């Protein structure tokens, strides 16, 4: 084996002298978007552009379905078999960085100076990942619904208060026109729960873990603010405003077919809603006392720790950070471009575009999920707690036991290095 690679190396050296094209090093890349043709076309375009633009590196991509992607990376890391370039969901990045399967990016910081904050994956003061796009959530409804129910249109400057929001739900329910007042998307289990619902908790004044120390959840996930949030959350279901278990088909088409008055949904679903109605409104999150909040950070690119050519991997990522690619992703699959200049190049996010509001929401309300390696476990605990409370579990008990579980996990991991 050794002599074989020696032979290969000497062959490469020999051919490098004769022809530069032979000196190309292959970089492997894993991506989470298998099954989405538009997305695959864009990423393949970037890769072939990159491969054609220089003669040192050749990037080869392997795509995974999103649902299996994180497990594949963990399994790959266990087997010592990671690619050079990875994409990673923003809140998961600290876990992968801490576990030692990602390394800091080597890209020019000035290139990302004007990127939306949610697109930058910073852990321990270093940039580990960067996103070409962000995602945002809004309260989707129609102007005609608001008019009919006699509700004011909330604005970024003056969002609905918690009372106004509940009043809106009560009026929507009383109108009798809808199956349910609010579509929360409870059909989407997994990361959707902490991504979409923990901002409500933060707006109440609680959080998943204490961001001052990152070593406990005591007091923030089971304190007064969190219990108030829990009671409100449970009320949504006991009052009949929303469904604790939802048919996935209703999540996809329910609002567009008039079953719900309001839908708590992301920008990626917005294009379909715009097709269904001509008076769609994307409203900011309500303010439950500590400011309106929505989640930030979507999928981002990073370099694996085991990569032998981090400079090549970083070169590819830096190459992908071009406004035209940001705009292409946005036009193709409706994502929020990471820069204002790229937004200006898109159909939907340019000044006055139908989705421009998401760019503003992202700038004004977005809060990243707790930046800690423990987030991966805390997110699962949080999801289970919310599902249990929605199904009628005692709020204080459920939050207490969630705190116990998160704290036990943090302790088991020596505070995750904090």
């Amino acid at each position, binding site marked *: 084996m050794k002599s074989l690679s020696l032979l290969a190396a000497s062959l490469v050296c020999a051919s490098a002298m004769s022809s530069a094209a032979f000196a190309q090093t292959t970089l492997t890349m894993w991506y989470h978007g298998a099954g989405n043709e538009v997305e695959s076309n864009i990423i393949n375009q970037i890769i072939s552009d990159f491969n054609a633009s220089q003669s040192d590196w050749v990037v080869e991509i392997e795509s995974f379905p999103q649902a299996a992607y994180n*497990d594949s990376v*963990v399994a790959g*890391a*266990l087997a010592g078999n990671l690619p050079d370039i990875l994409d990673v969901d923003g809140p998961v990045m600290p876990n992968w960085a*801490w*576990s*030692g*399967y990602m390394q800091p990016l080597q890209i020019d910081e000035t290139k990302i100076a004007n990127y939306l904050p949610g697109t930058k994956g910073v852990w321990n003061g270093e940039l580990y990942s960067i996103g070409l796009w962000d995602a945002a959530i809004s309260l989707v409804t129609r102007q005609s619904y608001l008019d009919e129910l006699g509700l004011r249109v909330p604005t970024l400057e003056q969002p609905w208060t918690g009372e106004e929001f509940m009043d809106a739900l009560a009026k929507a329910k009383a109108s009798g026109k809808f199956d349910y007042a609010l579509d929360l998307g409870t059909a989407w*289990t997994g990361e959707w729960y902490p991504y979409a619902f923990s901002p409500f908790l933060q707006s109440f004044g609680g959080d998943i873990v204490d961001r001052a120390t990152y070593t406990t959840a005591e007091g923030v996930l089971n304190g007064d603010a969190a219990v108030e949030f829990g009671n409100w959350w449970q009320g949504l279901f006991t009052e009949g405003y929303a469904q*604790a*278990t939802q*048919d996935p088909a*209703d999540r996809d088409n329910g609002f567009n077919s008039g079953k719900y008055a309001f839908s708590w949904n992301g920008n990626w679903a917005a294009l379909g809603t715009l097709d269904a109605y001509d008076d769609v409104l994307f409203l900011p999150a309500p303010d439950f006392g500590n400011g309106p909040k929505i989640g930030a950070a979507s999928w981002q690119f990073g370099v694996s720790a085991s990569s032998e050519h981090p400079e090549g991997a970083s070169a590819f990522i830096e190459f992908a950070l071009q406004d035209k690619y940001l705009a292409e992703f946005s036009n193709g699959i409706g994502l929020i471009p990471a820069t204002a200049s790229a937004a200006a190049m898109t159909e939907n996010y340019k000044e006055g575009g139908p989705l421009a509001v998401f760019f503003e929401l992202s700038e004004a309300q977005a809060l990243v999920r707790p930046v800690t390696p423990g987030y*991966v*476990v805390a997110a*699962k605990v949080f999801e*289970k707690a919310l*599902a*249990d409370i929605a*199904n*009628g*579990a005692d709020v*204080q*008990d459920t939050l*207490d*036991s969630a705190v*116990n579980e998160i704290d*036990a*996990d943090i302790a*088991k*991991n*020596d505070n995750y*290095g904090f």
Partner: protein
Amino acid sequence: MASKFTRSNSTGWMMAGPAAALMALFIVLPFIFAIGLSFTNQRLISPNPTQFVGLSNYSQLLGVGLLTLAPERDDAGAIVREANGSPTYPALRGYTRNNEGYPQLDGMREWFSISLGDSRTYVLARDVVFMKAVVNTVIFVLVVAPVQGGLALVLALLINQRLRGINFFRAIYFMPVVVSIVVVSLLWRFIYDGQSGLLNNLLSALTLGAFPRIDWLGNPSTALGAIIAMSIWQAVGFHMVIWLSGLQTISPSLYEAAAIEGASPWQTFRYVTWPGLRNTAVLVLIVITMQAFALFSQIDVMTSGGPLDSTQTIVFQAVERGYGKQDISGGSTISVILFVFVLAVSLLQRWLTREKK
């Protein structure tokens, strides 16, 4: 008394060798690892070194405690009662969270409680979810083992006849077995759907709309039952085939003799068929029991343990912790506990079904 094993039998060992080696490598060895890991704090992936933690994983999972509380009394000494007349008790979290007087209860949660007179005794568990998983798994086994075995026997008797087109029925009954359990679970999710599921539509059509629509998998009181019914249906064909093979080993001359003696169909079954199926019955019972303890895929696809932990199972918890929460030591501990549990049950079954001489 030399058994066949200890006598020199090199051909036999050579034939068994490959399978035995593979089982040692992929089943026995990982299991020995699991026992070792259950005494450490091993994570799936972590930069921290693995440490020996003794039995703390076990005490974390199995720890239980008792707490008896007297009802709250007002200043006059009368019991404070709720609107429905039941006495009120002090909040449990006052005892289970940072109460220095009760260090042994710290971090525990109510599992269930019983009222004795005016006072109330709480059974607390350190890991209520695991306790519920154990109870659910035991319920699942207790229902599935007899019902699935019995149903499979009935089907086997029905198709063990020489009739035109009987192969059609054999194929139909066996079909669910060859379909992946994941696919079956996905299909049954549609059947059980709370809004427009097949089962709800069927029931409402049969009762002319009188039957209320039930969210079978979303309701804590029906979710486990729904999964039990579906699981029985899915694997019943497999055990039917085993019964069938047992039925066909019974000599036809015994049936002829019974017919000549004028035995009724029940007597034929009771005194000819059933004794002839003895060994088959033991096999079917043990196989179903072991498969039922390993309940995982249906849970993973259909409910993820919810709602309100009503469908948590031991294996689902082992995977959820070991892989989902990256806590390999916790998952290993659950596996070891499950192993001891299944071993005990199997030994008990063997003892109960032994040949009585």
